[in-house]
């Protein structure tokens, strides 16, 4: 008995991977379905969110001020009317003002003050290894901070300091490179764990082979289709 849900899931997964072999109608179906479903889903969640956060407080008579926020929310949509699109700047200004203020007030302690005091480490620690590490940390923090200064005079010494800073940052990007491989391979493993799972394995082989054949003979199929429907360009 064919499990239609697994069949559809395997089909769309392989449609995306068909992009690796050849750009084809399979890929375009997958891409457009993804965009359509994503926006359809977001709409429902947005409506649900508006009801929970704005409509219910008003309908239960809790707080009539919320009507103001709904009006501001609707003002966003004036951006689609050319003549009045400037009105949408008011609600955008509210969002940007809150967002900037909320991030700014705590970023000072979280990303500046606390990071400075965390770098107060002794250069004569208990073990030789720790002392070496602490010296490296202090030098590397100071040089990578100094690397991003642009108005000082371009002297020999400042050039040397900036080079150390740039090399530190390169080692930092190496670590990011290492862990980015982790994220990308994780997503790949997640997909193939599903494709090789007992339920999906047979669909993988059947749909996979059919799709490979269709892609291999893509050019021939297109000539065939071209003959019949000149307007439909696949």
């Amino acid at each position, binding site marked *: 008995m064919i499990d239609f849900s697994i069949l559809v899931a395997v089909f769309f997964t392989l449609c995306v991977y068909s992009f690796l072999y050849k750009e084809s109608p399979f890929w375009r179906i997958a891409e457009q379905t993804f965009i359509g479903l994503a926006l359809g889903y977001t709409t429902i969640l947005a409506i649900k969110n508006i009801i929970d956060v704005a409509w219910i407080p008003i309908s239960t008579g809790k707080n009539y001020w919320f009507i103001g926020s709904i009006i501001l929310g609707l003002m966003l949509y004036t951006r689609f009317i050319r003549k009045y699109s400037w009105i949408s700047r008011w609600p955008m200004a509210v969002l940007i003002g809150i967002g900037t203020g909320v991030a700014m007030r705590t970023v000072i302690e979280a990303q500046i003050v606390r990071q400075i005091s965390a770098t107060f480490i002794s250069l004569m620690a208990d073990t030789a290894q720790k002392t070496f590490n602490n010296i490296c940390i202090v030098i590397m923090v100071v040089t990578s901070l100094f690397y991003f200064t*642009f108005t000082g005079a371009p002297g020999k010494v400042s050039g040397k300091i900036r080079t150390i800073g740039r090399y530190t940052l390169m080692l930092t990007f190496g670590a990011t490179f290492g862990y980015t491989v982790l994220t990308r391979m994780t997503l790949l493993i997640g997909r193939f764990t599903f494709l090789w799972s007992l339920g999906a394995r047979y669909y993988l082989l059947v749909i996979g082979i059919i799709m490979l054949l269709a892609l291999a003979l893509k050019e021939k199929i297109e000539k065939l289709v071209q003959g019949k429907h000149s307007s439909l360009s696949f």
Partner: protein
Amino acid sequence: MLIAGRYSSLVFLLAFSIITFYIIQRSRRGKAPQIRKLPAIDAIDEVVGRAAEMGRPLIYTVGGVLDNVEAPQAITGFTILDYVAHKTAKTGVDLIICPRFATHIPIVTDIVREAYRAEGTLDLFKPERIQYYSDTQFAFATGVMGAIARERPASFIMIGAWWAEALMFLETAVIYGAMSIGGTANTHQIPWIVLCTSYTLFGEEMFAAGAYLSKDPISVGTIGATDIERYIIISLILLGVILVTMGIPFLNRLLSM
């Protein structure tokens, strides 16, 4: 009156606000801080020079959504494009531009046309060399990959807010032997750009190059102010380290007030 435990943040906020306000005011009155000649600009000159020398095209892509947090990176991309367009107008290099979003097309077209008019070679300006593919990520990336394979450029420059698509066309640029320069503030994409290009502008260095070229008083003023703030932070760290090494945790307690 003030909430305890937040005094040090408030002191930093007030101090840095005054520094930023003062430096921007001075720079708007004409006394802007001097940004040093950045190695990035030399790298861009070298890459444009290579395209002129080999008589092959130069592909320039600019990325970043205009109406959100990515806007500053897109603007820097436009500023550097203006600089490059002036150079290609002078040297007659075939400049191809691949804008990331449809909203970039009018802006990019104006920049290049004005640059060619300013250099007096308006006849060399060809609007069809501005090739737009799609707003969606992978369709844009495959479009740029196709352009690189088709045009076989000598040089490739990509400035802006890049995401996963960066690696796709960077690899193609390396395979086809283009000498390339990359610039972004998205730290998660910098490893690829460093590994595939001859020079990388990352984070503030990209904004500094933009300010150096645009001479916009507010951007140059902001960079001057942030430099002073960095010198303050560096001296605080060095002072703190010395005090802690001598066993005086005075600065620690001061900063955690």
